[in-house]
């Protein structure tokens, strides 16, 4: 075997393969040199990277691995191929309901929440400074407030004295109180409303901030070019100049819309009537934290994860067409 060539020295050989090998070796030498030069950078990055690898990356890898096994925590995992996935799609009716509900929630709350976040950010951006800060707080507060969403349980209480029922009965719109949170006909709309209420998160903040950084001269140039109203301004100047922020907002919106679970459990109970608002996350919690069928739960998690990645790619393709 040839001696390890030093960077930038003696590169080449007689046959194409030898040249290829030499070039590769040379590249590696370069990389190695660069790594040695930047040793302290790895030292800076290492603490975060190690914890990140252990608690963020490794769980996903482990989850994918367990999804091909039968694993109940007590016994060692047993490899069963695609059996978990087959069971999910062919034998588990509740999963199919959960999947349908989750897709419905994602398709409705994802885009609406996203567009709402952008439009409100855009509207707010035109307000005077203090009003802007106030409105930002108004729209963002529900997202950071955690348990505050439980107030909706009072508003949508099925009791005749529940807030909404009380007023609807009083004004003669309905005669008997509606069981908002246990009648399957009303549960999904209620969950959608509450999810939208909580959907203006990090993406919304990114939009507000992004809008305020767009160079004013671009708008002046647009005016000269004949941009006539705010909607043209939005499509041809504003949106193309904040594609990065739009992508970030999309990632946040997708993540949030696919992981609705706490809200359904908090408001409609677990399990909800007829599984009317049972989501994939609820199903995951059921098998992972209650039944301890970890292999099965991992398969559910993997499907959820793939759905998110796929949506992100699709949204990315869509966003690249903006301003054309």
């Amino acid at each position, binding site marked *: 075997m040839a001696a390890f060539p030093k960077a930038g020295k003696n590169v080449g050989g007689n046959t194409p393969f030898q040249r290829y090998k030499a070039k590769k070796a040379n590249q590696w030498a370069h990389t190695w040199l660069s790594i040695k030069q930047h040793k302290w950078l790895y030292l800076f990055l290492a*603490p975060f990277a190690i914890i990140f690898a252990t608690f963020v990356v490794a769980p996903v890898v482990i989850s994918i691995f367990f999804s091909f096994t039968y694993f109940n925590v007590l016994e060692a995992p047993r490899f069963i191929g695609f059996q978990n996935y087959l069971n999910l799609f062919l034998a588990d009716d509740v999963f199919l309901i959960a999947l349908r509900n989750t897709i419905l929630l994602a398709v409705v709350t994802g885009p609406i929440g996203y567009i709402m976040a952008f439009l409100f950010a855009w509207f707010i951006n035109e307000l005077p400074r203090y009003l802007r800060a106030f409105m930002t707080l108004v*729209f963002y*507060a529900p997202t950071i*407030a955690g348990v505050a969403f*439980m*107030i909706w349980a009072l508003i949508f209480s099925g009791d005749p004295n529940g*807030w909404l029922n*009380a007023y609807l009965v009083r004004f003669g719109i309905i005669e008997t109180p509606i069981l908002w949170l246990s009648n399957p006909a009303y549960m999904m709309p209620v969950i959608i409303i509450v999810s939208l209420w909580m959907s203006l998160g990090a993406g919304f903040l990114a939009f507000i901030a992004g809008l*305020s950084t767009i160079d004013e001269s671009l708008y002046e140039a647009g005016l000269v070019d004949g941009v006539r109203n705010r909607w043209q301004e939005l499509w041809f100047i504003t949106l193309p100049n904040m594609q990065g922020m739009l992508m*970030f907002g999309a990632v946040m919106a997708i993540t949030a819309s696919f992981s609705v679970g706490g809200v359904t459990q908090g408001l409609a109970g677990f399990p909800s009537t007829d599984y009317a608002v049972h989501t994939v996350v609820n199903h995951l919690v059921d098998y992972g934290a209650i039944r301890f069928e970890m292999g099965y739960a991992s398969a559910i998690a993997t499907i959820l994860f793939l759905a998110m990645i796929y949506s992100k790619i699709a949204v990315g393709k869509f966003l690249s067409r903006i301003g054309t």
Partner: protein
Amino acid sequence: MVKAIKQGNKTARKVNKAAKNVRRPNRSRGGDIFIGFILAIFGIFFVFPMVFVIGNAFKPLNELFLFPPLLLPVNPTLTNFQDLMMLLTQSHVTFTRYLFNSVFITFVGTVGHLFLASLGAYAISKYVFPGGRWFFNLVITTLMFTGFVTAIPNFLILARLGWVDTYFAVIIPAFAMPLGFFLMKQFMDTVPMSLIESAKIDGAKEGHIYARIVMPLVKPALLTGMIFSVQALWNNPQDTLIHTEQLKPLPFALGQILAGGVARAGAAAASTLVMISVPIILFMIAQSNILNTMANSGIKE
């Protein structure tokens, strides 16, 4: 002469005033009214439940169950808070212990996260080195990993480490929140490299540059990371990872009260207000800095 100047000033002021009244181009009055109207309607929809939460906390028990229900209390009272205190001082783990656990977990988790994430973000943002770009792309991908997807393997890993039922189980994983790292890296990209190079010429060590030059410049990013980290840690009852009552945080105790039904309605309303006020007040304090950071949050494809 003086008169003429005064006259001039007056006209100048008039012109200024007129300029202020000139509408921005491309903004129709009808559009402005429409937008104001939409914002007002949705603003009410968004703020209404929060006002309800705040109002409920100060309602005496008879008003909580009044028909028709009231938005704001007629006779505001602090009884609910007294009830809450009493409930929690009588429980076998005291209120102060829950509060300490919550504050400790949130504080240590957040400070550790900010320190480790900013250290790593500095390296990735300011230098090109093998694996750096790759690592950052990995972080972007993991922005999509929600706690639900990783919860089960995370539990298994923590169990293997023997950390379940200790503070470590909730604090250490919180250090590695990808969102904070991502935002900090994006913000550090705006710190000019020339600043760092000139410091190097002056003989500053890397640690010194990080701590004394870069960190003060990225304060907005630190505050943003703080909000997201506090939000995640403060609101989490951590009931799967911590089983010893003495180590449980406040949201868990308050969740128990919330589940207490009608008899605990007053205390539950008070406890909800206590829980939500911490992240909201922090956000209010840090707001302008946060928006500063989010301006750099774009994902470049």
